[in-house]
């Protein structure tokens, strides 16, 4: 296998890692308002319009399940960006300048979401907490949607044209921002958002105990059905245009894995459910990259595509990067797994120190 192909695969791996990992913490963010409503007698808030203690405890439990991990999860995106820059400079340049405003939206939502996760618990006053909740929930919905739209654009093709720089030809995005939002790309955004929601619900079912665990399983069934419907339509539409045998297989595995995940969740096999939705997300990414190959960005309407060969770095850079990845990726995976192992136990609202006994907001 030549180096260009290896790096194409590695970029796919990085996107897979990003969406499988941050996918569930996006999902947990989306679940905040869904799983934190008060149910049953005795849980009504003392002051009308205020959240009750139990609802706040639920939110804190949900956020604590991802607390030690979300930041590391996001680094997969940064690594995907950096690796694209190093291995495929033209891809990096064309994609990020072409998707200028969507990328701006993604950056802003990620910034606000991260700040929310970091700052929410730093003060206890209701307005402060509520404002950051909006940032966390909004970011968790919008970010996967924008990523879905962006990746789908690569597959369905972006409007591009050939340019000359000196004696060198290169392809450059030649559309407007509106060209990036078509029914298919919007469907891609919706499907990824629904998949993340399902995936997050599986994660919560796996990581909590008590009522939270039960309710997230119920929600996962519903979200899973929606995600399955959207994904099937999306993969059919994309496959009809760009499908290859391999991409159809990946799409098939994605759908089967999702069905298995939904069934496992119903039966209470939470680990299998989580593995199932992880597989689905991974296979969607694999299917996307199979429909991309041998291009980095497909062209729209018979326009020129950006090929991997044209986009790639010199073989020296790719060799250096390959060695670096071979040496350092196992180390990185090692401590990542270790940190998940350290924080492996299930959480419940009972693990949250009560507000009156909490020493300030943070002991970190």
């Amino acid at each position, binding site marked *: 296998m030549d180096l260009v192909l290896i790096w194409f695969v590695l970029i796919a791996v990085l996107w897979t890692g990003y969406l499988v990992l941050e996918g569930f913490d996006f999902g947990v963010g989306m679940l905040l308002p869904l799983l934190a409503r008060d149910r049953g007698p005795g849980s009504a808030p003392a002051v009308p319009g205020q959240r009750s203690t139990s609802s706040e405890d639920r939110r*804190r*439990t949900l956020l604590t399940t991802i*607390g*030690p991990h979300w*930041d590391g999860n996001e*680094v997969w*995106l940064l*690594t995907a*960006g*950096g*690796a694209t*820059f*190093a291995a495929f400079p*033209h891809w*990096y*340049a*064309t994609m*990020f*300048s072409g998707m*200028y405003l969507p*990328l*701006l939206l993604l*950056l802003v939502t*990620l*910034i*606000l979401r*991260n*700040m929310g*996760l*970091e*700052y929410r618990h*730093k*003060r206890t006053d209701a307005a402060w907490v509520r404002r950051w909740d909006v940032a966390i929930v909004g970011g968790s919905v919008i970010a996967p949607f924008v990523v879905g739209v962006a990746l789908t654009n690569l597959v369905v093709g972006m409007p591009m044209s050939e340019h000359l*720089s000196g004696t*060198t030809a290169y392809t*450059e995005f*030649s559309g407007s921002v509106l060209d990036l939002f078509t029914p298919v790309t919007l469907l891609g955004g919706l499907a990824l958002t629904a998949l993340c929601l399902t995936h997050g619900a599986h994660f919560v079912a796996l990581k909590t105990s008590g009522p939270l665990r039960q309710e997230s399983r119920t929600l996962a069934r519903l979200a899973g059905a929606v995600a399955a419907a959207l994904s099937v339509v999306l993969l059919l539409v994309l496959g009809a245009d760009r499908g290859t045998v391999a991409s159809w297989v990946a799409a098939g595995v994605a759908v089967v894995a999702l069905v298995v995940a939904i069934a496992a969740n119903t039966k209470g096999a939470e680990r299998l459910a989580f593995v199932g939705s992880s597989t689905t997300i991974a296979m969607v990414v694999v299917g996307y990259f199979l429909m991309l190959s041998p291009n980095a960005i497909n062209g729209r309407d018979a326009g020129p595509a950006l090929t991997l060969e044209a986009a790639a*770095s*010199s073989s*020296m*850079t790719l060799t*250096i*990067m390959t060695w*670096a990845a071979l040496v*350092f990726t196992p180390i*990185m995976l090692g*401590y990542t797994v270790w*940190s998940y192992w*350290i*924080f492996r136990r299930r*959480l419940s609202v*009972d*693990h*949250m120190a*009560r507000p009156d*006994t909490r020493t*300030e907001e*943070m*002991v*970190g």
Partner: protein
Amino acid sequence: MDVLELARWQFAITTVYHFFFVPVTIGLSAIVAWYHSRWIRTRNEEHLRMAKFLGKLFTINFALGLVTGIVQEFQFGMNWSTYSRFVGDIFGAPLALEALLAFFLESTFLGLWIFGWGRIPERLHAATMWIVHIGTVLSAYFILAANSFMQNPVGYRINPDTGRAEMADFLAMLTSPVQLVAFPHVITACYMVGGALVMGVGVHKLRQAKGGALADRRMYRHAARLGAVVTLVAGLGVTISGDVQGKVMTEVQPMKMAAAEALYETPPEGECAPFSVLTVAGLGGEDPTHVLEIPCLLSYLGTGSWDGQVQGMVELENEYRASFGDSELTRADTYIPPIAMTYWNFRLMMGAGFFAMAVGAWVLWATRKDRAPMQRWVGPLMVLAPIATILGHSFGWIFTEIGRQPWVVFGEMATHTAVSPSVGSTDVWISMGVFTLLYGALAVVEVRLLLEYIRRGAEPFEEPRLVTDDEPLAFTY
């Protein structure tokens, strides 16, 4: 403003803002880790209280450093796509390595440190903060290597077929002379920021604790003095590395050094160049009015010899015109950078650093024995000293980046050729407006939160212990 100007402003705004938080992250993580480890060695309760107290300030700051760093990663592609195409082969590698080696380390181990109270054996727990610190330093190394390439490209060749720069020697790029002096200069300056911050907070809390519990007074005095020592020692490192850097710069970027001095004409053969401390007017080249000059000092700073030859800008520009004038990628109108910006930022950078060192020395004196400096002006001074160190970084970066103009990659690519051709000025206006407003709002939130946590001070000591499975966790969101 055209796209080029807007993109440059956006890069300046986002980068200078990002770099308010970076040095705090690097400097403070070391001090937090040191206090945490000291507690394990000495079982001095005050050390654990300080580790936790400063740790809170650290996490508040880290959050903003991280999110503004995400923008940095993508804006090369957004606004500077021609640049990214031209140098991606070389420039992308350290960026990717930074993410793979440093960002994962920082974020994973910071998560372990924050949530690890009661969950991880204590020695290992203290080690996690050291690992965070190592991550921040690694990160700085890679990003500085990328920047050093822009200042002084080495280890590459231009591929005549593609017109792009390609990697020829990665190790040479990672260890270029510019990189080897820039890294210690920036890192020691980061320790200065951490030191000045801890010193400022320590003195402030010490003043408040006067008449309070003895343990609190002892704790904050210790922090104030530790911070002062770090500021001084690191400041010495900054001075020495800066001196070496000046000589390397004179060699590889003589125009930058000449611009820093507003030195137009090369001094006649056999005459040394003076260093001007201040200049009023005359930076335009018509008879510069140096108010205060130190004879021959510029020759020494630039060459290490008191009668060394330093070239002036006029001569240099003629040389550059002759060698770069005709290439498509390098064509520029002038090879002289904006003089006032380089001249004043260079002086402000040094002034800020020396000011913080002077304050550090004074704090050591003023807190000797059991003294607490209670004068009214001490309060503002303790706010000013850390701010000076942070602004010192900004001045330094503005100097080094403006002084490189008109190049984006010295000698290889002029800045005006580097912008994204497919991005219109409306797009850049929107993103610049959004980032400016967002960053401004976040700055207000962050400063308020920091002040609030500083006001609360260190919490009372609590014996740490491993928690069992069904009791409330020591730390939750």
